[in-house]
């Protein structure tokens, strides 16, 4: 369900578990990372782009609404570029990027950003690693200087690594090991993909983290951190010519590097349904189904990815979508139900359905209900009204997005990360609007066969009977 309808005083639905207060507050990330296809922006000359001689591309979008700026650097190196045995290294290096450089002490980076009144963070995905600062505009030159510095001058050492790898292991425990749905997603990915690197979790397998060395991180840095494997995105109250000049000054000093060969690692064709189940302490079961699907390669000629995007929106794009209406409210089979398709990525795409059965309903009943919804589209198609709603939602989102600098920067960065061009942001919206009911029905028929389906389920275990991960003594209240 797109938005949950009950907002109790203590968060109580399974998807609104009581997180420590601050955890609830990362909303801007969610806003910022909306699927790129949904959120194009009107562009004339703005944004602006240049390319330095060393291969670094710089994209600037001038938006003078407030005296602030977002500065991001994206590296085309994510977990899909890792090798077996060092899974998680892209993300570990991201953590280490906040340690010292040849001229900056460890921790100094965050300190400088904080003192400028800014905030900063970084994130790693399967396709890329990105760093950003949001600052009062006067601080932009200093941010560019700092970010450029750690592109080439990071000093990695064994001691910093030893503390930080423990932090990453704690992060894994928090995200995955103690998170039943996290475990299910990890199991699903490693079932769905057997050859393609998307089978590995971004955070890395725990065993790989335990055996990682500081040299693994150093090697990663040396291989992938280069101006010709990166791009800069700046959005805010800035003059693009000045940003270009600063980029030349700070990033222009580095030479391009020969990058490692990227082998395709295509997934062999799946022939037959795959099922996996995960036991973990929980109450409600959980089901996730994923079909192999085409991704967006040619924004002009492709049609199916747009139709799949529209299909996902019709099933689960808003509160009046089919899953909310039919499964959560109508038949009440589902406590929650969702659909997702992301065709903008470097690797291979999937179309996913997931959900939790309502109390008293089973996983089998939920799976049947999700399949029945697909079958309805296959047999009866979708209505003109449903198509119109998807378009309305896209257009409104396009306007609302302009209220956030970060959302605009993420849109540009994300588009580039998937191998598309930011200039096609508008094209995606236009193409989405041209999708017909027949095309939606056609993709529903074409891609949802059991031969390319993988299913993962959570088999909930009572917490009283679940053992702690390590032996422990008696517990006192």
């Amino acid at each position: 369900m797109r938005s949950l309808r009950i907002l109790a005083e203590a968060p109580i639905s399974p998807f609104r578990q009581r997180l420590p207060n601050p955890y609830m507050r990362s909303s801007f990330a969610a806003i910022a990372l909306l699927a790129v296809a949904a959120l194009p922006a009107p562009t004339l000359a703005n944004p602006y782009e240049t390319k330095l001689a060393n291969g670094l591309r710089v994209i600037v979008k001038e938006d003078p609404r407030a005296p602030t700026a977002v500065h991001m650097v994206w590296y085309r190196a994510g977990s899909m570029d890792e090798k077996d045995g060092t899974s998680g290294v892209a993300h570990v290096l991201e953590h280490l990027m906040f340690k010292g450089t040849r001229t900056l002490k460890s921790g100094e980076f965050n300190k400088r950003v904080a003192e400028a009144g800014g905030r900063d963070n970084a994130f790693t995905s399967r396709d890329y690693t990105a760093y950003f600062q949001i600052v009062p505009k006067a601080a932009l030159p200093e941010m560019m200087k700092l970010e450029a510095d750690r592109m080439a001058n990071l000093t990695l050492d064994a001691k910093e690594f030893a503390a930080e790898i423990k932090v990453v292991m704690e992060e894994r425990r928090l995200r995955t090991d103690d998170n039943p749905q996290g475990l299910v997603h990890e199991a699903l990915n490693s079932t769905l993909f057997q050859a393609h690197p998307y089978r590995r979790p971004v955070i890395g397998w725990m065993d790989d983290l335990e055996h990682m060395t500081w040299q693994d991180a150093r090697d990663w840095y040396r291989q992938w951190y280069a101006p010709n494997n990166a791009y800069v995105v700046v959005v805010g109250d800035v003059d693009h010519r000045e940003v270009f000049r600063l980029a030349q000054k700070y990033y222009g000093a580095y030479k391009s590097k020969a990058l490692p060969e990227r082998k395709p690692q295509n997934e062999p064709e799946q022939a037959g349904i795959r099922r996996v189940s995960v036991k973990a302490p929980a109450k409600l079961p959980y089901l996730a189904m994923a079909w192999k699907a085409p991704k967006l390669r040619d924004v002009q000629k492709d049609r199916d990815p747009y139709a799949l995007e529209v299909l996902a929106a019709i099933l689960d794009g808003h509160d009046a979508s089919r899953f909310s209406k039919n499964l959560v409210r109508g038949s009440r089979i589902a406590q929650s139900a969702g659909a997702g398709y992301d065709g903008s990525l470097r690797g291979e795409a999937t179309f996913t359905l997931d959900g939790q059965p309502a109390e008293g309903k089973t996983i089998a009943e939920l799976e049947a209900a999700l399949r029945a919804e697909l079958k309805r589209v296959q047999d009866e198609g979708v209505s003109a009204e449903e198509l119109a709603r998807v378009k309305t939602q896209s257009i409104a989102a396009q306007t609302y997005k302009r209220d956030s600098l970060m959302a605009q920067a993420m849109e540009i960065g994300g588009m580039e990360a998937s191998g598309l061009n930011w200039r096609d942001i508008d094209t995606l919206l236009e193409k989405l609007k041209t999708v017909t009911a027949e095309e939606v029905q056609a993709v529903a028929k074409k891609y949802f066969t059991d031969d390319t389906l993988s299913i993962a389920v959570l088999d909930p275990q009572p917490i009283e009977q679940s053992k702690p991960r390590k032996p422990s003594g008696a517990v006192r209240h």
Partner: protein
Amino acid sequence: MKQSKLIAPHPHPRPGAGLLVGSLRSIIVWRSRALLALVCLMTSLASSLVSAGVKIEHWVAPSGAKVYFVEARVLPILDVQIDFAAGGAFVAAGKAGVAGLTRGMLETGAGALDEEAIAGRLVDIGARLGGGADSDRASVSLRTLVSRTEREAALELMRTVLSAPTFPQAALEREKARTIAGIREAETRPDAIAGKRFAAAIYPDHPYGVSPTVETVSAISRDDLADFHRRHYGAKGAVVSIIGDVSRAEAEAIAQRLTEALPAGGGALVPPPVKMPQRATIKIPHPAAQSHVHVGLPAISRGDADYFPLLVGNYTLGGGGFVSRLMKEVREKRGYAYSVYSYVAPRKLEGPFEIGLQTKREQVDDALKVVNEVLTDYIAKGPTPQELAAAKKNMVDGLALRMDSNAKLLGYLSAIGFHGLPLSYLDDFAGKVKAVTVEQIRAAFARHVKAENLVTVVVAAD
């Protein structure tokens, strides 16, 4: 369109709203959740913002509702939020869940519209209704395009939902069932268990410490919701915040239109007084790999003169992300935790001061020892002059980016209105931050964070 790229998306910053279900793949791993957290926490508390150039207009509508308005003409959008003193703190004993269900059910039927009609209309005009209920307030917010057709339809829908909810029995039964399933699920999760136990422990015999249970939710009737709405969603207690591409005259008409048909009730309400807890350590078994730890107590209410010293002081202790002492000692030096933080969250009455972290269960005693040492030292000595200067610099220079969107400003308007803060709050903010001294911080911590009242909750303790 569904976004599916995130590992931990929280589409709503409000307590009570939640994770997006369909984020299927663990694709993006953030370096720090706490840092994001910090920023948004400050935002939602309207504790950090600014000044120059934001003109807040205030008036009382004929309906009796208080109105706060900022004209913002750049984008063709309109944001409206209405807040009521209708949070969990106003719910009768044994009825926990009523505040959240009342708010959540507003969109399940209103006037002549059923929930499908309401959802359909919103989608057709590209508008979004949001909000939720926390311990003090219940909120309904609207974002719409400002073009006439869309705006008119959106405001009419919001008015109907606010003024004439029907609380259909069938929808109530379903939502009660979903809520109960959610409670049972939460009872298996270490973070949820820790949060509830912590609230209960620091607020003994007080509605701030009460969470809905299977029993209380089961007992809620349609009449309970209708009654709660009648008593707590009145125009006199309503705070209307408006920002967007409309004029003052239009904003006046909007505020009146949205509140004129509200129930007659409402008005100044205060929850019962908060009692301080006794120092205690509560350990709760759970098989998780990590222990979840909360340390804290009820600390400060809105309007308390010690608020700025506590807020500025907390930045150095655990509010300032990577530059905070807790982050340095617990995470950076020892690798004990991915997330460790402290915050001060003033409410109508004493809201919590809290330190939180998660750590491998075998080392939880060591981590707690570090936390307690840092806290004790900080309470005794406060920040160094250098730390205080850095905190001020961040909070003052960072004001611009805490209010660089209509969405953020809307949050500030509603906090100013709901808590009766001065209209000049944003203008005064930098000055108040700059005026804080080390001595004031020490005194404020000594007054509000007393060792004898500190409660520690550890879930998945050995």
